[in-house]
């Protein structure tokens, strides 16, 4: 039983790591129906930027809490800037192109960004400083839950709630949903499409940055390739939960995380990804729109 619970916990942690990235993924998809392959790269770049600024601040002798705050804020700002620029450069010109064309530019961008970071910084793994402060109240259970894991769980939940509220109740959120449903109509109603899409990308990239800083702190090392793997898993999780659906992304991530964890624990970690992907395929056979995704009936 204890073994089961431990596996469950590790599944939850893994799931919430996926969720942090999947949230941004699913949000961008929900608004503009684009699989933003470069999302994982934004996550990677923000981790690097946090690392760079943290090192600089450390060198100037700032204390750890201030370093954490400043470095992660800068990472978020830069991620937003990168997200904004990428959208303007590579996706906006393709707004009216066939559906697969933005996918190709996303893949191309992904390659460019990976190699850009590799050349500008380094190709090997870089240790990432543990920016997250130790929480005193966690000391008694530190063998079960790291502070970083605790923070990831908490922040995933908070981000999910805020995002749901923003999209459901605020003016910009309503505009986003309008754009998602019918871009043409939204435009006719006076919504500035370009502005809404930019905002979507900026929010999505900020989420990637939050994920980048937290996950990098948790794992303790980064290289230019981490975005790719994390991106694919997050994408899987987002689809599992019903792509475009915010709580769905979290649920999908948790299910994915737990599946992998139990597969490792009870079968073999050799086939952990096989189980993860098999569960997705199975689910999609019976519920092609994902767990929480809305069924889109085609009107005949």
């Amino acid at each position: 039983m204890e073994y089961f619970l431990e596996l469950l916990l590790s599944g939850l942690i893994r799931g919430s790591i996926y969720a942090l990235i999947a949230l941004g993924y699913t949000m961008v998809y929900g608004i503009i129906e684009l699989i933003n392959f470069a999302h994982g790269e934004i996550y990677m770049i923000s981790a690097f930027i946090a690392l760079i600024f943290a090192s600089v601040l450390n060198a100037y002798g700032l204390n750890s809490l201030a370093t954490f705050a400043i470095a992660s804020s800068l990472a978020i700002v830069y991620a937003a800037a990168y997200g904004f620029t990428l959208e303007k450069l590579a996706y906006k010109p393709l707004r009216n192109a066939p559906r697969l064309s933005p996918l190709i530019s996303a893949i191309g961008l992904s390659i460019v960004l990976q190699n850009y970071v590799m050349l500008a910084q380094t190709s090997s793994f870089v240790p990432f400083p543990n920016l997250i402060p130790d929480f005193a109240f966690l000391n008694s259970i530190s063998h079960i839950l790291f502070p970083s894991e605790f923070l990831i769980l908490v922040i995933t939940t908070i981000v999910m709630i805020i995002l749901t509220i923003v999209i459901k109740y605020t003016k910009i959120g309503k505009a986003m949903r309008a754009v998602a449903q019918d871009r043409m109509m939204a435009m006719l109603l006076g919504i500035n499409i370009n502005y809404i899409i930019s905002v979507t990308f900026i929010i999505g990239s900020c989420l990637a940055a939050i994920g980048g800083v937290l996950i990098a702190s948790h794992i303790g090392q980064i290289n230019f390739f981490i975005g790719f793997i994390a991106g694919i898993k997050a994408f899987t999780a987002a689809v599992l939960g019903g792509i475009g659906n915010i709580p769905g992304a979290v649920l999908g991530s948790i299910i994915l995380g737990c599946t992998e964890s139990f597969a490792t624990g009870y079968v073999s970690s050799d086939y952990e990804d096989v189980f993860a992907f098999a569960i997705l395929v199975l689910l999609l056979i019976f519920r092609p729109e994902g767990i929480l995704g809305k069924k889109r009936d085609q009107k005949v």
Partner: protein
Amino acid sequence: MFSFKEIKKSFLISLWFMFLTFPLMVIKINPETHSILWEWKNMLWVGIGTFCISLLVRFYQARNKKKSLSKKLFFADRKIPTSVIVAFLFFSIIFPFLFSNYHVNIMTTALMYIVLGLGLNIIVGLAGLLNLGYAAFYAIGAYSYALLNYHFGIGFWLAIPIAALLSALAGILLGFPVLRLRGDYLAIVTLCFGTIIRLILENWDELTFGPSGISQIPRPTFFGIEFSPHNVTTYIYFIALGFVFFTIFMVNRLKHSKIGREWQALREDEIACEAMGVDKTKTKLSAFALGATWAGMMGVLFAAKTTFINPASFTFIESVIMLSIVVLGGMGSISGIIIAALILILLPEYLRELGNYRMIVFGLSMVVIIIFKPHGLIGNVKKNYKTDYDVSQ
């Protein structure tokens, strides 16, 4: 040439990029010694570079506005003149006698990717089923040959139909669960399929020899005659070339046949397609199976060409490159796919001189091509059924 306003705009853009690249380009940290290097001159380069590129783009856009639309669509909807085809044919045949083995080898790879692109085109371009796991079929073909040869000594030429059959079966196997899925969901499931196949190759040591792969796979023979290592490259080149011709011929036939039109109709509108009496299940499965067949055959050729295979050759990136060939070429267009395959495969090879920058240039060219030609390099050529056969009453 440029107004002050435009120059100012470009200047602002370059400033923005200098800001954007500042932390990664300027601050170089060394995690081992905790030392920090400030490389301000990189910032200058970024600034100058983006300023020039931005001006160039502006220039291009200004020029394009003046041009008429028909000029812009220069390639689209036009049949390629016979003279060009003949020249191309001639060139492809004398190619191995003009260039060194290395170039022949690279060109063979490009030819193989043309076939792969054309095969994937059946699934993605014609039937409209997004597939991100095409490399799995490629892997099945390669491993079929390697293993059949290892265990039963089956030769290259016999392995080709067997691998084609096995891949087609795998295609149907993948096709069944995804019948109801469309678009991005299909993409993720095919991606999963590709990954699952690769993981099985990695983990099932007893069957596949695991990650260390299978080496010393025999190269193709010519009616039992073995070629010298030098000549075999040329021989494989001609096999690949033969496959390209065969595939173009077949895909062209398929495209303009009953089944081909049904694929396209399925891509356009599933519901209308069913209402016209087209069997959705059969049509989708046949697209998956036929598309996979070409990948299977190329897999055999790949194994025979490198003489060594391991799961690392069949990663997700491989599928992505194959998909990019189809999309960049212009979905459904055969000549477009040929050009895209040549660009995507030859470019990184010949960009080697650029060293570390080659992958950046490669990625950038993908983005640039798709932005300037969002429908792919070459549009679909319409089939005129004018000159077809007389109706025998």
